[in-house]
């Protein structure tokens, strides 16, 4: 396989997923040997911002017209586009509160200066361009990222996690925080792939990897309410990483 042309980009976010890539310390020298990284502003000052790319890896959410235009340019020059991290896949924490009046908030924080700032509500990449592969996580898991990219470049379909954190937790026989300690653990609703990292530390899942398909929201919400949590707090918790914002909205509407 010839070395594919790769670009690694960050829109608005914390740069944590690019940091996970740089954190592959043991394999860093192998990665740069296998990939022809042509555009990676966080790590290099010699970037080709126009060349065609076999693979674009994009983190962060779209929070400005500038982000949106950059994403469209990246899509136009790339054969495969991979969204990495919960912000790129779901909108992330910035998308948790879609109802807030943005222009008012910006005015409050920056005064009159803020009126000219380029700012839009948080959107995931797929809301703007076609995305070929989503790798969720806040941040992404190193192994899932490396195997996903490796599969793509070798012409295989990446294997993505499909079961919830809850299933991984049971496999490891951790104590159930939902039933034994009555925490608001989001394990049953959240996409696995982290090997139930937080429940393994006796800490309830906060949902940082985004929602799992076919989650039984109704039943889990009923359990939370049985455990004494209020609807509003449940809705807020579910929205934190934005992945559940659609269902969380439904929850709030039920209330009214």
């Amino acid at each position, binding site marked *: 396989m010839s070395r594919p042309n790769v670009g690694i980009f960050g829109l608005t976010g914390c*740069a944590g997923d690019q940091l*996970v890539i*740089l954190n592959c310390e043991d394999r860093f*020298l192998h990665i740069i040997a296998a990939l022809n*990284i042509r555009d990676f502003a*966080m790590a290099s000052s010699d970037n080709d911002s126009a060349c065609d790319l076999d693979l674009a890896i994009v983190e962060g959410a779209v929070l400005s017209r500038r982000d949106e235009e950059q994403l469209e340019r990246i899509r136009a020059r790339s054969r495969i586009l991979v969204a990495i991290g919960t912000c790129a896949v779901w909108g992330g924490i910035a998308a948790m509160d879609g109802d807030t009046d*943005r222009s008012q*908030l910006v005015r409050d*924080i920056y005064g009159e200066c803020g009126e000219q700032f380029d700012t839009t509500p948080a959107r995931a990449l797929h809301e703007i361009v076609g995305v070929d592969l989503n790798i969720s996580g806040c*941040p992404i898991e190193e192994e899932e990222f490396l195997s996903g990219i490796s599969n793509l470049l070798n012409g295989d379909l990446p294997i993505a996690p499909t079961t919830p954190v809850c299933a991984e937790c049971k496999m490891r026989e951790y104590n159930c925080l939902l039933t034994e300690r009555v925490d608001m653990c989001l394990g049953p609703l959240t996409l696995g792939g982290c090997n139930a990292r937080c429940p393994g530390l006796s800490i309830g899942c906060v949902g940082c990897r985004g929602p799992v398909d076919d989650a039984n929201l109704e039943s889990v919400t009923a359990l939370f309410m049985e455990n004494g949590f209020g609807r509003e707090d449940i809705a807020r918790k579910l929205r934190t990483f934005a992945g559940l914002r659609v269902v969380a909205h439904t929850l709030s509407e039920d209330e009214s």
Partner: protein
Amino acid sequence: MKRKIVVDHLCRVEGHGGITVELDGDVVSDVQFQVFEGLRLVEGLVRGRRYEDVSQIVSRICAICSVAHALTSLKATEEASGIESSPQTVRLRDLMYRGENIESHALHLFFLAIPDYLDYAGAAEMAADHREAVALGLRLKQLGNAIQETIGGRAVHPVNAILGGFGKLPSFDQLISLQRRLRQGMVDCEAAVDLFTTLPSTEYCQIDTTYAAKRSPDPYGYYPGDEIVVRSNEGSEVYDPGDYRAVIREETVPYSHAKLSLHKDKPFMVGALARLAIDHDRLSSRARHAVRMLGLPLPSGNPMDNNKAQMVELVIDVEHALLTVEQLIDEGLQQEKPIAIHPRADTGTAVTEAPRGLLIHSYTYDSDGRVVAADVVTPTAMNAASMENHFRHAVEQSVEKDLPELKRKLEMIARAYDPCISCSVHLVRKRHAI
């Protein structure tokens, strides 16, 4: 004749920013450090949230400083709730800061800063000719991550530090493994200092600089303690954390999503160089040796010296972390459960030292434990005005007036500050009356 130096997109830093300097003859008529990172407006996000949810949300302000954001938030919330952490919790939290600082400084020095000195576009390009140097940087970086993973449960956005303590304490075997790696780290630090002494000198700018840092009861602690010290050539002043608004005045500017911070109408610098300028009389002999080897004057008026200061901190942090881990191995960990928090209506303000400098979090809670108001002041936001000041003087003091050369110097000064632009965007609204 009017000329303009423009760095559209500053590379090899975290986030999205640029520099514009306008020259009228040899005099700088305008200087701007622009931040165009999108606005996430985290303040709107934490308001109304319960106290136990806050640290995981604000951790996402920045990945490289995620330990600092998560733990400063815990410290402030605990302060608001009137609980005091156990000495063991404080020690473990400080150890997490060491891990974060080692990772962050190794990343910055080896991946972002050193390539400039040796004329490479990045660490990947540098690895072709200097494989050992890059491997050394990677090992140090990995050591920092190993500490963060062992104590914090994850290298980026730690999960194990929670209100009142930790979810799960590290095992004896994990501490032994850290001890082994830290011993290798001690050797690696010596090699790194040696490497640093071979780099070309970068005397780009000399001006009187005002520094601000937290001072800890123990020498060079990042987490414990609360006093803010401001040091200039007029002497030192000490402030309580609750008075941080008296220390820092923020100004909004139209060209940047970061506000400019001033102390008594003057810019001030935070970070490794500021910490050393303020705590240099309490350094270990190894650290003092590194200071001498690197020829680092303390205090220094050259912002490029922040790179040397970070190198000295690598020495300090690896030594300090090894000492802590060995104490924990000798004394054994107490199996403490996290202290339960009972919310009350109050305000808590906490100050710690993030890798890039002073970090302040302040929260006001209502009696149900929900956030009423939040304020976060980040090191890169505090440094923005100081960076502009150093840009201005570096251009005016430069003998070389060639524009590409000036541009290169400006980029190197910007990188020496190690700006974390995600952090710099003003995230929260100023406190308002409840």
